[in-house]
């Protein structure tokens, strides 16, 4: 099967060249998905299917055009290529457009542990049982858990193929599975839900269903009977799940696409101290078995490790070929796209290096502050660095988690928040392509009563 897809990609590029493209690149993506949803101990839904699609981007001189199709026949290919060439007639000359230099093309040859064939062979009954066990663990954890939004087990397998007219042809398969539970806790009139999710590139690496269910239940329970606190400035501690959201705002701000447009508060700050010297941020797409790992990026450039912020100093932006050329820099191998169009910039494994303190030690040092376990809505304005988000969590009193808090917002200025990072936890875990440990910021504005 993969041989056919590689052939299709190479042929599409060849066809584009023969019809007048000076350069072309073709991406194919093929995937299969499965999901089993359980609710209140019964199967709620089962879904299983596969699909595929191909996309092409052509350059005629400095003008680009792209198209895509789900029809991977000879006719489909020809229609796709002709449509892209037609579109290249209406775009403008862009002096920076173009494929990566041949010297930049390449792929990692070592085993990146992205594909465990066992994921495709798991029995449906076994997957259903995992979700049932996880939900049962949540439902039986405490009498206040009487309802549930359900539990699910899902798995995906996919293959990505990329070819370009500079001689690159590569493909790789990946697979992953995940287990999640969303219990609802209730006490009198108060009702709260929370979730826990475990995902991995092999079933053996998932947290046990019992752990997933219990953690989800504990999280929902501790939110019950939340208070709204007065408006005030206090230290804020982000647990890893919310620290990760904050880190994704930093990703947007070092994204080369925002930098060259001056649409980031970090534009023009390369080499400057922009954060506390406790902060080191890395992007590394070469770590085996993780979610942001790949042998090459979506332009056929070999994956690598890039130090983005080193002890508070901004060392590198994250770039694809286009944004690198705009900035007079070299690509960092972060090109990202669906199956068509101009490449954007995406993370490999983008993470904050772990610090020395445990989360407990960080909380212990706070006399009065806010421990954020959930962020809703809002976020950062990447252009200005203004940050404002809805939040829920626990109030910290004299170094202890004292009571739940909700219906408040937290706000600050990203430039200042970065400089005021006081502690970084030792609890770094890779649950997705963006990962952060517990993080404490010296002071943010809480809006409440």
């Amino acid at each position, binding site marked *: 099967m993969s041989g056919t897809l590689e052939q299709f990609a190479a042929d599409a590029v060849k066809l584009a060249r023969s019809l007048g493209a000076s350069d072309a690149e073709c991406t194919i993506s093929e995937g299969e998905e499965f999901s089993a949803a359980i609710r209140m101990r019964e199967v709620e839904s089962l879904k299983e299917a596969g699909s595929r699609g191909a996309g092409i981007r052509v350059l005629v001189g400095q003008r680009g055009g792209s198209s895509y199709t789900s029809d991977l026949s000879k006719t489909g290919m020809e229609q796709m290529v002709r449509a892209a060439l037609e579109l290249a007639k209406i775009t403008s000359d862009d002096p920076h457009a173009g494929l990566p230099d041949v010297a930049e093309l390449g792929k990692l040859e070592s085993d990146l542990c992205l594909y465990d064939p066992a994921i495709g062979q798991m029995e449906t009954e076994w997957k259903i049982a995992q979700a049932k066990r996880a939900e049962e663990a949540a439902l039986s954890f405490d009498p206040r858990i009487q309802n549930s939004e359900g539990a699910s087990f899902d798995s995906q397998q996919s293959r990505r193929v990329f070819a370009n007219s500079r001689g690159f042809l590569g493909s790789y398969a990946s697979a992953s599975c995940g287990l999640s539970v969303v219990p609802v806790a209730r006490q009198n009139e108060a009702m709260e839900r929370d979730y826990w999710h475990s995902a991995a590139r092999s079933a053996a690496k998932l947290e046990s269903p019992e752990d997933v269910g219990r953690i989800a239940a504990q999280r929902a329970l501790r939110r019950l009977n939340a208070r709204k606190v007065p408006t005030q400035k206090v230290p804020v501690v982000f647990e890893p799940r919310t620290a990760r959201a904050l880190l994704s705002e930093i990703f947007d701000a070092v994204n080369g696409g925002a930098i060259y447009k001056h649409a980031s508060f970090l534009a023009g700050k390369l080499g400057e101290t922009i954060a506390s010297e406790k902060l080191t941020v890395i992007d590394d797409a070469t770590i085996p078995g993780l979610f942001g790992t790949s042998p090459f990026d979506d332009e056929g450039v070999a994956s690598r490790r890039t130090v983005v912020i080193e002890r508070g100093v901004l060392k590198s932006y994250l770039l694809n070929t286009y944004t690198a050329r705009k900035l007079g820099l070299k690509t960092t191998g972060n090109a990202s796209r669906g199956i068509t169009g101009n490449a954007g910039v995406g993370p490999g494994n983008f993470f904050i290096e772990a610090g020395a303190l445990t989360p407990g030690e960080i909380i212990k040092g706070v006399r009065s502050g806010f421990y954020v376990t959930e962020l809703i809505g809002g976020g950062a*304005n990447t252009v200005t660095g203004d940050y404002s988000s809805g939040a829920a969590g626990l109030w910290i009193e004299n170094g202890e988690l004292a009571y739940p808090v909700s219906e408040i917002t937290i*706000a600050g200025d990203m430039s200042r928040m970065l400089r005021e990072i006081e502690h970084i936890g030792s609890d770094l875990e890779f649950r997705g392509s963006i990962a952060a440990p517990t993080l404490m910021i010296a002071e943010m504005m809480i809006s409440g009563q």
Partner: protein
Amino acid sequence: MGLSQSFFAERFGLTERDLEAYLSEALSAGGEYADLYFEYLATSSIGIDEEIVKSATEGVTLGVGVRVIAGERTGYAYSDDLSPEKIRKAARVAAMIAKGPASTVKTGFEVARQHNLYSMIRAPHELGLAERVELVKRADKAARAYDSRVFQVQATYADSLRHVMVATSEGTLSFDRQPMARMSVMVLAREKTGAPQHGYAGGGGRVTLDFFLNEKTPEHFATEAARQAIVQLGAKEAPAGETTVVLGPGWPGILLHEAVGHGLEADFNRKGTSAFSGRVGQQVASPLCTVIDDGTIHNRRGSLNVDDEGVPTQRNVLIENGILRGYLQDKLSSKLMHSRPSGNGRRESYQHIPMPRMTNTYMLAGESDPEEIIKSVKKGLYCKMFGGGQVDITSGNFVFSATESYLIEDGKLTAPVRGASLIGNGPEALKHVSMVGRDLQLDEGMGICGKEGQSVPVGVGIPTVKIDKMTVGGTAA
């Protein structure tokens, strides 16, 4: 129109016998209902950035989704290949949800009643590429001409045409041809020194390119985006804490979408996990508030002739004079709740299971003069534009982000303030509505709603509304 004149019959040779055979296969292990959702989607988009037309993309996807319902259970499978073997295979996979003797499928189909909400002068594929490029070039020019402090403009035009056909085991058949077009403009502006600010405007609906030539022009969106960016250049820190909030008309209706709309989707209420569960007949808003979800408004982004389960859309009263009246239903939830579908069963594509979703959600106009509303506020915040929002269905807490707002001091709008999130609780927030303007406006057509990983286009609308108490998440103490 019958099947034989339909897009799918002409293009793929599908006959009623084929549909019956696939539905029988889907019900071969029992279950009381099955449906087939055929979808063919052609899209195009063009983007300008730095005065260079940098991107132009077109494409086509097609597929069929097969669903089987057995009690509370749903089996789902899809195929991006419409060959009989592949559709039968998907039907067999979906059938695995049921375990029993085969159920029978009704023979013959009746074409469902439906609206005609978006007739097209010219379908997207009849339009020239040059015309589309001209739209983004005009937007770029207009934004730059608005003010010399504008230094970056990005404009996109995107349109699509979706052909759908839904065939059910109850013997109903429905077709639709759904256009969608949208323009968006992003502008950055800056003073000679100091940080840049951005502005964003966009809109469209179930229209085609002609709408942007004749009704809402590229210049309209471009100047609006530029105006917002320029206003932000002079903005001060937003206030922090509880204050009186006045929402301007139009897109600020996103408040309704987050505060009540999601919480009234029937799936959450059937499961008892919404903050609104079991509250029909109760006071959940001030008597000034009547909230409607209406999928039948001509050419609106959230409108549909039939929903994605083949049910005609309708106008549903959610809250009437402050009293909760009803939920947004799809087929599965309405059956389990002994109610009726309300035309709100929607899905992102053939790869997705339908669920209850909003269409166009808005509050009816009241009697107050908008200017009087602002005049009545001694100290507060006037919010004119918003970005997105989010809600926690179970606790009812929701957030929406103001991108353009002004302080109200002694009944007058004064300084513009920077972006900030507003937070409230769904069943409580609208109880604090004390004035409703007579200036109901629907938004310009840029809403995308996300739920459980599925995105669908929606509309919102609201008149000028005064909320006595709401928490604003700024930084100024």
